């Protein structure tokens, strides 16, 4: 139970980074931390205590293996996370070219 809860704590740390930090790069880091927390939770849900890798070979008996579905799912979310991070970092670079700063409070021209 503590393990599951620690995932949510990690998620909240990431959320804090996204909401409170002023530096764009730190905001992106916060998002990455949130992503890891979600992935970790998914992997933990599929884990069985003392389980082994879910590989079916000749002569193996199917007993006490970890759930393979979350692992497949998390692989996909990692790739999606990569794409998101790339887009956000690209935007950060272009923002730096235009504004000359990473400070989010100075990049605030859209209001109202």
């Amino acid at each position, binding site marked *: 139970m503590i393990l599951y809860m620690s995932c949510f704590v990690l998620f909240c740390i990431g959320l804090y980074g996204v909401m409170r930090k002023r530096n764009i790069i730190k905001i992106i880091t916060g*998002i990455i931390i949130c992503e890891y927390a979600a992935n970790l939770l998914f992997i933990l849900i599929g884990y069985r205590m003392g389980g082994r890798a879910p590989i079916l070979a000749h002569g193996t008996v199917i007993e006490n293996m970890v759930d393979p579905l979350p692992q497949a*799912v998390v692989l996909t979310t990692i790739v999606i996370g990569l794409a998101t991070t790339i887009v956000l970092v690209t935007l950060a670079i*272009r923002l730096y070219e235009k504004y000359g700063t990473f400070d989010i409070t100075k*990049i605030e021209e859209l209001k109202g």
Partner: protein
Amino acid sequence: MMLVEKYLPLFVAIPLGGAFLISLLGWKKRGLPEWIGTLIPAGLFIYSLVTLWATTKHGIVVHHLGGWSPPVGILIGADGLTAFMLVIVHFVAACVALYATDYIKKYTSPWIFYVLFLIILAGMNGVLTTCDFFNLFVFMEIASLAACTLVAFGTERHELEAAFKYGVMNTMGALFILLGIALLYGYTSELNMADMANIIAAKGPGSKIVTMAGVFFLVGFGLKAALVPFHAWLPDAHPSAPAPISAILSGLIIKSLGIYALFRIFICVLGMTPLLSSIFLFMGALSMATGAIMAMGQTDFKRLLAYSSLSQVGYIVFGLALGTPLGILGGLFHLFNHSVGKSLLFLTAGSVEYATGTRKLNEMGGLSNKMPVTGTSSLAGAMSIGGIPPFGGFFSKLIIIFAAVQAGHIGYAIWAVGTGVLTLVYLMKAMKQAFRGALAERWQAVREVPMRMRLAMLILAFVCLTGGLLLIPQLKDLFLNQAAKVLIDGRMYSKIWGGF
């Protein structure tokens, strides 16, 4: 039936293939991206009508992806609601693509625009047709990322800022949804939405995990649909994008990724409770008023329309959350009218920007004299959204207000009427400032936009005008009632799982 079932994945495959083809050949073949980008939504529109016919006849169409049966395989299915959304998405997307053929020439490398446009289309179709929870997440991210890139398409200061905001907020929303999916998977050991609904119903209500997942979904999809506490990105992102993408964002994306997914999950999978319903009613009413009040003070034409979208989404959520057959019918009908009307308004705002180069309402004036088609179609859109008979928007708002009275929410009904009046005021104010009055000296040389842009706007304006005809009993049975039936009896969805 068999054919529709067999070729259901084409809704995702064809736009993705088109995007691949354009990125392969489009940058050297002039005109090819425009052709592919317009013909694909138009062709899929016809196919979505066939799907609609099939779902009316058979109720539910299910395709087993790759021939694998569940529980191993992934299902792709269409019921009345999906077919309803597919028809709207492809109709608006086809008009927008036709409009974009001329509009996008003012940017460099239009082929990138069409690649991303088709990827958005594929993502939206994936969200609409999939029956698998994780697929829903993946397609949602595909559509959001492509949309985020398109918001930054002009790579100017404001566009980059808006795109960054949109990217961060939407990614956070998606991560909340992912947490919710993880919790539900732990609870049910299943990712298929229909089977998940069965298991949750069998385990009975009152589970803390389902409640927690529900909260995560509320935040996540609330961010995607821009319901009021989570709306901060919308008024920045929607005006900053190129006009065709603003139309897609406001008309389709917040509806298919936000409202459709929200109600598909809360009504069909988790099961609606009175508490949830009252939360949605409150958020809907809050969105209505916030959007309308904020729109009153805007001087930027597209920003005004973005706030108006916020307000109209509030109406849709309000209608659907009432839960009565009449309320759901009104909500879905308003979804249709708003998709068509708001896309049209964004396209006309784009036309004005194309012709004059400004979005400031107080710099315009008298443009109707020089741009009669834009002026007339813009008025049609404004009258439909503002709720003037005989335009479609009037009937849908009327139905929602009647449904609220019928359900005993008199206070909310008065609230909705008041917001409706505000809507009419700010839209007519914008129309007057932009198109009526004396023509300023500097706009003497303004010319009407090219032919294909005019054609797209006229088609949408015509549908705005005749939208009310969908309430004729024969058409209503075919189009609206099928979709409403799915949301009225949420348990019907689990039939997709059927006899496995």
